[in-house]
């Protein structure tokens, strides 16, 4: 009896010892900020100056803040336009690499390399490529005598197109790797059996590849969606959120509220809403993933 008790006690201590370092940082720098953020959102304050309690005022303001809704809409728009592109292209690249063509390592490297770059480098490269008049595309075309009459940053749609191009170039490699892992898990005999049955390429794809990849695809979509919610660097560096607010996603707006309007209370409120949104979506998609399995 005594031994079991001391054994359990010892286990608690040991577990505590192993968990403590992790937990200290986790609680202090991840969990506590959420709570603090929520508290901040209930007050009106600016950096450094003490906030005055304001109850749900910030949330009330949020509901009728056009810019909040438009930036939220921008974020959702970006998710809608980027997810299919990133998923489909990622899958296509994975399949190409999986075909083991000549030089397949080169292909895989080329597709993946941009992912290693810092966002600042990515932003810099694409600004200089897409800029109107002085960008790579514009200058080259005009030197050939072809005037470029549209501008990549010039309108709502085009602004997002430029963000899309930069984002796809930058991150598709990540999806490719996930799909590749998924593809390599599919046993060859499935395909061989299909060959024997006389299935063609499309049939094999549709009835073997796609179902087998369902788990990975769902995962990729989840990760992609969450990442798109966090969009900040590309808009901040390439379009500066413009023209107007057309390419300002929600994280960019939080940045503006906190560091240009100096309204930390309201920024915390929008942050908290963002957190809830992402949490909700993660949960829903997680449930979806689990149920599919």
């Amino acid at each position, binding site marked *: 009896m005594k031994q079991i008790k001391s054994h359990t006690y010892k286990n608690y201590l040991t577990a505590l010892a192993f968990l403590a370092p992790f937990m200290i940082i986790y609680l202090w720098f991840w969990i506590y900020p959420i709570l603090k953020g929520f508290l901040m959102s209930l007050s*009106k304050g600016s*950096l450094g*100056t003490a906030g005055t309690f304001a109850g749900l005022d910030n949330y009330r303001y949020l509901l009728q803040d056009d810019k909040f809704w438009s930036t939220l809409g921008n974020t959702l728009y970006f998710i809608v336009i980027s997810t299919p592109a990133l998923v489909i292209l990622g899958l296509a690249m994975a399949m190409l690499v999986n075909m083991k063509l000549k030089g397949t390592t080169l292909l895989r490297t080329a597709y993946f390399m941009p992912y290693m770059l810092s966002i600042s480098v990515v932003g810099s490269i694409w600004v200089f490529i897409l800029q109107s008049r002085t960008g790579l595309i514009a200058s080259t075309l005009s030197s050939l005598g072809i*005037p470029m009459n549209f501008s990549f940053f*010039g309108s709502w749609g085009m602004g997002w197109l430029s963000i899309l191009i930069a984002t796809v170039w930058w991150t598709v490699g990540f999806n490719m790797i996930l799909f590749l892992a998924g593809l390599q898990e599919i046993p060859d005999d499935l395909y061989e059996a299909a060959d024997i049955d006389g299935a063609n390429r499309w049939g094999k794809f549709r009835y073997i590849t796609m179902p087998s990849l369902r788990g990975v695809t769902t995962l990729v979509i989840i990760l992609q969606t969450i990442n798109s919610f966090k969009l900040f660097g590309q808009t901040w560096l390439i379009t500066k959120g413009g*023209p107007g607010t057309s390419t300002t996603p929600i994280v960019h707006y939080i940045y503006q509220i906190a560091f240009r309007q100096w*309204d930390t209370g309201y920024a915390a409120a929008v942050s908290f809403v963002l957190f809830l949104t992402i949490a909700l979506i993660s949960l829903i998609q997680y449930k979806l993933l689990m149920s599919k399995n």
Partner: protein
Amino acid sequence: MSQVVIVIMIFSLVLAGCSSANNSKPQNENASGSGNSQGKVIELKYWVPFSGSDGEYMESMVKAFNESQSEIKVEFMNNNWDNYYPKLLASLVSNAAPDVAVAHVSQLANLVPTGKLEPLNALATDAGLDWSTFASNQEQSVVRDGDHIAVPLDTHAVVMYYNKKYLSEAGLLNEDGTIKLEPGAEGFTNMLLKLKETLPADVSPLIIGSNNIFTYWIWYALVQQQGGTYFADGVPTIDTPEGKAAMELIKSWIDQGLAPADIGDNSYDIFKTSKAAVTFTGVWSTGNFETEASLEFAAAPFPQLYSQPAAWGDSHTLIVPKQDNREKQVAAVKFANWLADNGHMWAKAGHVPVKPSVLESEEYKALPYRADYAAVMDIVKYMPDSQQLGAVNDAVLESLVEVNYGLKPVEDALKEAQDKANKLVSK
């Protein structure tokens, strides 16, 4: 392998530990006045938010100051521009501010409420600073409640640059190099139209940032030129007849093909590479334009298109945070005064010195173009004192840019801007 991993990890933890220890120190040094009163060197921490060549010029000025005397040593600390003001604000509030720091006149409204800016009249006497040596427009801009709360350093405004070659080809250049310009908005537009006739197809008559803050600055200046206001009694006045007229003018330039739409920060490049004849940009571009040998340009004050002369501008000033060590504060004011006296060095960055004596000096006059800017100082209409200024400016700019891109008509954009401004101010 795992042994190596462990060693690396332990090493990193030690590093993390060391950096924690090292980093808790500097914050405390500023807070209390560490006595330095025995003829030892007074050390000042000096914060600036300058990127690019501005930073380099200021750094060399600090060096020159340090070498010119041995009582005061200034430590130059450059900061990221983007969140300089939040950082400065936070440091003021938490008593961890530097001994002297740069602040724009337009930002003083945000800093004054902290109550941590030292009023300077008394210090100025001790430091030998005479307010009357400063240009009056600039000197007035730093007065709050009857005392000066900052030392002006420079003025930087939006002016007009033009490509002399293109202008003269279009017959628009006078003998003395000034532009042949009929008065008023119409006269200016006509000049642009005339340019369009003679310029090559890939060169624009006018280039302005249609997707960045320049649109706002130009609009602001045009509103002021009509005698309009931006804030009246603390309330934003955006949606006004003057506001509409100003924005309609800008839009008309774009519509008539006189200025391209969708121009961001590359407006400098475009003028610099002679792909545009006229541009409105800050005085700070001069240094940059000068590096392009093929560009023959001249600068002029922002043209008067309406009833009054006015230009957008702001000034850098130096603030002295409150602290116990009065000796350091006096030293800070001396340093600020020295910077103002040596404005010809700062002028290399394109900013206009703030002391008329410097403007008259040989060194200043020797700098090309700079003499033309001096006139600008008097017509600068500073932005109003408001804690919401930055936020309102951003909101207004967003709406104005939409007009440039044809996404909204002028009336709707101004109305939207007014609404946003009202909301921000009443938050």
